């Protein structure tokens, strides 16, 4: 009988392809300070994405290399890292597109826990601080609340965020004030709820962003738009919030 196994080849079918890496390493349990590790890894025929190479390094070369990963298809947001100087998701970055040596560093600006794993606390705190949940005080109907397709379209480009942090950790304003500036991801989600026709807390949401830092540290640098692996546009969403802030003052 035929067994359809998409994973090609037994262990012996190695591709000749070897890749060179320089990877940021830091283990607080043993290292005084971080270092860049040079290494090579022999890929298997099916290894196409950067994450495949990282898993190969971990299984075949150095099992101490630590990084977050889960879905391997670009939807969970676990494996965001700085790849040849640019933030991205390892699992949907094709190895063909990467110049060697492939330089991997943790996302910039956040404390490093170990190797490519950063402490995401400030990032998630900012997300939580915008009250990222539907606020509607009316008693819901027995069935669904109605929302027109046009109203629902307002959420496109907003709800798809996977909280990978590529955007906020590419933003100089967020680097300088991660505890005070909400950052592109948090502000995109703030707008997701402002824009939702079912949400009633717009005024409070705008009040919540009214200080010198939370919203207005955005200077339209637009690194966020450049790196978002899902093609989202935080700058545009932030622009809409700014516009609403201005309008209600006039």
């Amino acid at each position, binding site marked *: 009988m035929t*067994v359809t196994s998409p994973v090609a080849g037994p262990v012996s079918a190695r591709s000749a392809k070897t890749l060179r890496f320089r990877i940021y390493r830091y283990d607080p349990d043993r290292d005084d300070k971080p270092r860049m590790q040079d290494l090579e890894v022999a890929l298997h025929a099916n290894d196409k994405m950067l994450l495949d190479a990282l898993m190969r390094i971990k299984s075949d070369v150095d099992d101490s290399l630590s990084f977050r990963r889960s*879905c391997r298809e670009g939807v969970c947001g676990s494996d965001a890292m700085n790849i040849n100087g640019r933030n991205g998701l390892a699992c949907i970055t094709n190895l063909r597109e990467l110049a060697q040596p492939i330089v991997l560093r943790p996302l910039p600006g956040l404390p490093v826990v170990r190797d490519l794993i950063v402490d995401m606390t400030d990032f998630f705190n900012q997300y939580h601080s915008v009250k990222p949940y539907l606020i509607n005080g009316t008693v819901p109907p027995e069935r*669904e609340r*109605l929302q027109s397709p046009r109203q629902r379209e307002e959420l496109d480009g907003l709800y798809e965020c996977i909280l990978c942090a590529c955007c906020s950790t590419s933003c100089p304003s967020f680097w300088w004030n991660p505890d005070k500036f909400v950052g592109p991801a948090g502000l995109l989600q703030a707008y997701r709820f402002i824009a939702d026709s079912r949400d009633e807390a717009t005024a409070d949401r705008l009040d919540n962003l009214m200080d010198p830092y939370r919203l207005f540290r955005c200077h339209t640098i637009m690194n966020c738009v450049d790196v978002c692996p899902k093609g989202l546009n935080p700058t545009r969403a932030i622009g809409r919030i700014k516009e609403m802030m201005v309008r209600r003052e006039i």
Partner: protein
Amino acid sequence: MPLARRRFDAVIVGAGGAGMRCSLQLARAGLSVAVLSKVFPTRSHTVAAQGGIGASLGNMTEDEWLWHMFDTVKGSDYLGDQDAIEFMCREAPNAVYELEHLGMPFDRNPDGTIYQRPFGGHSANFGEKPVPRACAAADRTGHALLHTLYQCNVAARTQFFVEYMALDLVRDADGDCIGVVALEMETGQTVLLEARVTVLATGGAGRIFAASTNAYINTGDGLGMVARSGLPLQDMEFWQFHPTGVAGAGVLITEGVRGEGGILLNSRGERFMERYAPTLKDLAPRDFVSRSMDQEIKEGRGCGPEHDHVMLKLDHLGAETIMKRLPSIREIAIKFANVDPIREPIPVVPTIHYQMGGIPSNVHGQVVAPLAGTGEAVIGGLYAIGECSCVSVHGANRLGTNSLLDLIVFGRAAGNHIAATLAKGGAHKPVPGDAGDATLGRLAALDARTGGERTQDVANDLRRAMQAHCGVFRTDALLSAGVRKVAEIAERARHVSINDKSRIFNTARVEAIELSNLIEAARATIESALARTESRGAHARDDFPERNDADWIKHSLWFSGERGLEYKPVHLTPLTVDSFAPKKRTF
């Protein structure tokens, strides 16, 4: 390191759809709850679900929960418990309305109601024709659902223990579960979390197979914990091969593509499902479609230079529909198959996707086991929900959109049951003196070992063995050889060693611990499969090609130790309606 201690009313292990729906229900009851997760909650694999959540809202055409129930019973190949299925399908509309009230961004119809699409196995009027029952948010329904639940948990101030890996259950002399031992991944600290109630919501074990749609984290941790604790795993022989995983990559392409009108073609350009399932065609249940695809490939009508896959054609839907309803799978096809489905078909193969079996539980989510002469004794203090559980609502094969539904319905039901139970009063039971000793011993032994095999070498051999010996079509020869191979691999797994001995976020240690859970899940799967000498649902035997209702309408219960395999009857009697008697499954 010594064992730290924390105490809560309830501990939930796993922050996917089921875990976070349960925690929401408990938060409303004012209980102290700790939700442990190996990953940040929104990374849980629920996020990857694409097509929709099934409920008979009837927004597009007429629909009834009884039809949904019939489809689910028939889809389960009559192995599902009909009382639990009735409960789930009756609750479904309310469960979906509730999600919408919580803010989930469903797609909408022109009249403002929730958009629904057709899906495999879902029919109107007991199999007459396809019915749009899958409530969808583009092809990101899991993402929308999981993020909405996380957002609500933020509002409810749920206490999450992020990047904590649960290692073992702690049970006392009465057999009651009094908590779990967990590893704080960031620091390497081990902790005993005492709880009056422990809820396992740890997902599936798809990573026992070489090709799967599953995330790396789906290693069956809850299953391993339960097996090591002497409790059984139910119906583990039933694994769903999703018809449309990207060939060569394994990434999922939703059944929703076929719901929107996509079709499967062989090398002759023939829509072959018309032959195998004249009524539902490409929207027959997944086990049916996967076997049909494999049959086409076996008979030489596969596509590509190796003739090893078939094609999923959707360009005829038009760019606008694809961009609006199926934007994520377009990206997946471009990234992983080098194909833009607006122009070309996607190469697909049946790929392991879902575990119908799991930890046996009842409709309240309580874990049950055959003890002291009773078939389904409740294990005190222990619940299981979501993919890791087996209620059983999916029986021998799950319909698409019923998993997201299962998570929400039983997450909520378990939450309600726990809240009601704890409200009656009572206190934490005393912790046994040796609590956690076995776990700490395992960890210490792992850390002390040097020169052993590498974890992933053993794990990859396990995956290859399962893929070869426990695939779409099974035989006694293949399964028997597989049982022997898995047993050998299980022995090898006991001696793996890791080079990384650091305490700080040691993922090599995590992977080695996960291997022990994968082994239990794999053993349960292949041993249960060898023993079931019939074909039913997703378990297809070339040597026993017919369904055998006289002997086999029963659930398998696999024990890790000497008890081996036992069985218990299927609940054929629903709660209020008439039973659906087993009939031959044609579509």
